[in-house]
């Protein structure tokens, strides 16, 4: 926990250091990123391609549908199958500092937690937390009136803690060794890719990204390729109607370990964001999404419904 705290403090200190340089930068009337007079609506799971300075937070919870957890299988036959549901919680901070018109540096801290909501799922899935600290560079490659293309490179430092009674019992029965109910897995990986934005007209815009990376797997001694990709289509009504709202439909697929706690699998997130878009320096919204996510010892991906509150303040 101290390590987590020190990472949060490091992020905030870095933000303050970088922020001291902002006073020298030009103050524009509207800091929300725009192309072709379209002011984009940011979405948590679709990283922004814009080279600007901002601080964002998001806080969300999700509840999974019911799933069957196979506790014991002999010759392909399920001996015990316990049903249950999971509760997910996610907290995310990110600070990005524009250094030049063409380059920005960002820091991100993410904490996800998953736990069984009933005795059965608590026994089989336990309590899992993954904290992630990431640093990355964002570089503008191409910009026209309507289109922006950027590239990013980031390093992700994950620390996962799994508290599982079932795994503890399995280890005892199978290996007859002194084991621990709590298991920690440190992981480090890097990923990089492209991000883009396209302002279709004053109302509609599209953002997207695709990343590929390589690094530690949840399986000890193994490394995996990781990926994430996604896009968002948004409609900002604030500047074409009297309604100060915007809507964004998004899709994201990821195998990054902070998102997917099972090695070699990926999750799919689709959703809708409703956002207040009349702010000239900030964006505030609610993201509702449906998540199809793999969980340990369950063959099928589990459906979950999530609600996120997200906010972003633009400095320039």
């Amino acid at each position, binding site marked *: 926990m101290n390590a987590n705290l020190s990472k949060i403090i490091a992020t905030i200190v*870095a933000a303050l250091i970088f922020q001291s340089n902002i006073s020298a930068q030009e103050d524009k009337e509207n800091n929300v990123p725009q192309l072709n007079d379209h002011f984009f609506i940011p979405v948590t799971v679709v990283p922004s391609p814009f080279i600007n300075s901002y601080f964002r937070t998001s806080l969300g919870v999700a509840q999974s549908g019911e799933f069957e957890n196979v506790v014991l299988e002999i010759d392909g036959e399920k001996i015990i199958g316990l049903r249950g549901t999971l509760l997910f919680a996610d907290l995310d901070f990110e600070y990005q500092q524009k*250094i030049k018109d063409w380059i920005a540096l960002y820091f991100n801290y993410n904490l996800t937690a998953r736990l069984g909501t009933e005795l059965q799922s608590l026994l089989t899935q336990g309590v899992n937390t993954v904290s992630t600290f990431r640093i990355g560079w964002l570089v503008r490659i191409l910009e026209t009136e309507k289109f922006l293309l950027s590239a990013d490179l980031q*390093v992700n430092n994950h620390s996962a803690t799994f508290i599982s009674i079932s795994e503890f019992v399995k280890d005892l029965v199978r290996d007859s060794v002194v084991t621990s109910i709590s298991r920690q897995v*440190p992981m480090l990986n890097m990923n990089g890719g492209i991000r883009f934005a396209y302002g279709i007209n004053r109302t509609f815009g599209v953002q997207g990204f695709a990343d590929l990376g390589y690094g530690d797997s949840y*399986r000890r001694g*193994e490394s995996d390729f990781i990926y994430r990709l996604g896009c968002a289509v948004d409609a900002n009504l604030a500047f074409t109607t009297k309604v100060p709202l915007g809507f964004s439909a998004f899709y994201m697929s990821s195998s990054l370990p902070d998102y997917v706690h099972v090695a070699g699998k990926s999750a799919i997130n689709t959703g809708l964001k409703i956002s207040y878009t009349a702010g000239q320096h900030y964006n505030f919204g609610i993201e509702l999404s449906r998540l199809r996510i793999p969980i340990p010892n369950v063959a099928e991906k589990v459906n979950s419904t999530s609600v996120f509150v997200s906010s972003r303040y633009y400095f320039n």
Partner: protein
Amino acid sequence: MNLKFVFFLGCLFLFATGAIAQSYFGFHTGINSGKFSGDSPRNFIYKGLLQFNAGFDFDIKLKKDLYLAVSPNYLRSGSRLQYPYENEEEEIKEYRDSIKLKIQMLTLPIHLNIISENDKWQYIGGFELGFPVQALADNTSKEIDISDEFNSVMVSMIFGVGYRIPIAESYLAINLGYSQGLTNLARNLEDPESYMPRIRFTSFRLTTIYMLPIGKVAKN
């Protein structure tokens, strides 16, 4: 040994390159708080160890506000290992120092220095190659050489920010940097049955740099 030869050959090459490009040459010294991260012996935790580093700097100008910097560096760093004990008086769990893991390395950071609009700030991003020379485990009563436990090459990603103070045509810079090891520090531990298969090295560095121009400096 060959790697060290390559390291110094690279330094010579960079010095020659720096001499012909419009660039800066200088030296640096600073303190660093190193720490191992990842797997640790059961119940033990890693804590930072404050040490020092020093070296030379070559800044090769690519654009008005962009330099390619190479900084051959001698780095003393490492990490402390702490073990838990129960404080019965206050009924809390505390950690005490057990062993200091000390590493001496030659490092070769290769990074970009991006200069801010007002020429006062520099932002740093790049990679660093590290070549451990010696590693010691120090438990206050004796030191044990554990160099064989570490890989001969380490790759890190470096980030930082610095403040530049101009002094005539030269300048003094104070850099605050963070280095995140990307490769495993420990040797032959990729075995899944190994006790500690994943150990990385991270460090925070506060460095003072003095840079002198090589050749005639163009006025911006």
